[in-house]
């Protein structure tokens, strides 16, 4: 069946705006912690971050960019503009892309552990449970929106 363009109810857009705001703040907040943590580590200061939030400059920058994508969707969605949905879908795609890549990283590190690689003797799955992976879980509900509208021509 041919579908021509997307259109959501105003109330749905309000919920989407809240969702984008939450995801934007989470991504930017955690991303900044990782970036600052890495800068501190380079400067010789122990940032004392939990295992699931290791200092990572580039990983943090990626989360900040994804967070900005989500945040850019908030104003148009609050103004009942359908264009805001674009930022929700774009942010979800990027977040899930990173999440899937880190899931594969965890899998391949697991294989390295199983084949007895020296660098992975003390490896545990938690080592790879980085923010880009677990933050992506929060984007799964948004993925349903993307899935629903993927065939719109």
């Amino acid at each position, binding site marked *: 069946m041919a579908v*021509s*363009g*997307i*259109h959501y109810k105003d109330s749905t857009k309000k919920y989407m705006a809240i969702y984008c705001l939450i995801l934007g703040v989470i991504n930017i907040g955690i991303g900044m912690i990782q970036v600052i943590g890495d800068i501190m580590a380079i400067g010789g200061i122990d940032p004392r971050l939990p295992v699931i939030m290791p200092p*990572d*400059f*580039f990983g943090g*920058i*990626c989360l900040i*960019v*994804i967070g*900005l*994508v989500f945040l*850019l969707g908030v104003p148009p969605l609050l103004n009942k503009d*359908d*264009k805001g*949905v*674009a*930022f929700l*879908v*774009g*942010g979800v*795609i*990027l977040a899930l*892309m*990173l999440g899937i*890549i*880190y899931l*594969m*990283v965890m*899998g*391949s*590190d697991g*294989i*390295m552990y199983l*084949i007895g*690689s020296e*660098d992975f003797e003390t490896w545990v799955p938690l080592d790879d449970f980085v923010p880009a992976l677990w933050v992506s879980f929060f984007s799964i509900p948004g993925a349903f929106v993307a899935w629903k*509208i*993927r*065939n*719109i*021509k």
Partner: protein
Amino acid sequence: MHQEIEKLGMQIIEERYKKIENIIKEVQKKPKDRLTWSDILDHVFLNKWLGIPIFLVILWAMFQFIFTVATPLMELIGMGFEAAAEAINSAFAGAGTGEQIFGSFLADGIVGGIGFLLSFVPLIFFLFIFLSLLEDSGYMSRAAFVMDRAMVKVGLHGKSFVPMLMGFGCNIPAIMATRTIPDDTDRKITILVNPLMSCGARLPIYTWIAAAFFPLIAGTVIFSIYLLGIVLAIFMALIFRKLLFKSKPPAPFIMELPPYRAPTLKSTSIHMWERGVQYLKRVFTILLFGSIIIWALTHLPWDAYVAGNMEQTIAGIIGGSLAPIFYPLGFSAVESVAWIIGTALIFGFLAKELVAEVIGVTIGISAATLFINPLIAYSFMAFTLIYVPCMGCMGILKSELGSKKWLAFSMTYGFFLAYLVSFLISGIAFLGGAL
């Protein structure tokens, strides 16, 4: 005159597109202000502020993916060939000198050399899988589009970005792809900076060094080297336009963006195979030939090799004479292995992959013992990125630039730029008290 013709051409194209848009408005039934799937994605991926950061995020994710996911496969292939080489060596251990030389030739020259190069096959194939996904999904042309504004500002034609992206695979077809650029100056500038885009053949060098010196952030380090190549290419384009060609910046170009499509397993596999198989062909032709030559130069005279006097072998003598050139860069700081760098870089002329092979397999030295600290290792990675293109690329540079003078210029500027960049990186190591 040429610029005016181009402007006129642009106006014609713009008018044509306006006409097309008007016709579409008249005939297409589409509720007002409603978005399609392509509109949705383009709002984000072509966003004025976020377009380039998103492109960089995707590029970074690509290197995280290819390095980490390929590592177990690389390790398994490497282990298999190492075991085979060891078995051959031990089979010839008690034999006479002639048989021992033959055994070493088989184990280190053929099996070890080919095995080392084949261990990078998963890495190369994963790189091409990702590039194919980006192309087949329609994102690659969006990447060229978002980079267009930045490219024009720094003196490159918007059409230059596609050949430059192609350079991530191989610089030879990338340089040939510059034929789509109509202006001769724009084309020459794009050709001259294209070797700065890191081709797949350089990936084994980066991977090998990054795994030894930056095991936890190898993907990020490799990404930074690719980024360094892009930054240098843009910077050199700006310099060439201002100083060498003294021409005005090119006009922006209009690009037809294909619709987004979900890549299929079949098309991605075909694209990956078509490109990846080129690497396999290289392994069994030019790289096998290179492995044999490397083995001969590093194992002869045999007496010197058996006695462990590697500096007395042919490669040792050649490399030793080149070592002083690299003292200021810190590459020769580990004196016992200082000769290796020059030898390895010479083989880089033949094929870039051989740089890592010379050091890692034929001479059998781990990357970790070659450089005195990670920053010097990084400086060496930057040097191999920039210094000179491989022989095949040189041939295409000569034919596309149309003269030996331009080729000589390309090689000379490449070497001096490599030296300068590495000197600066090593200088940071010196200043930081690392040396």
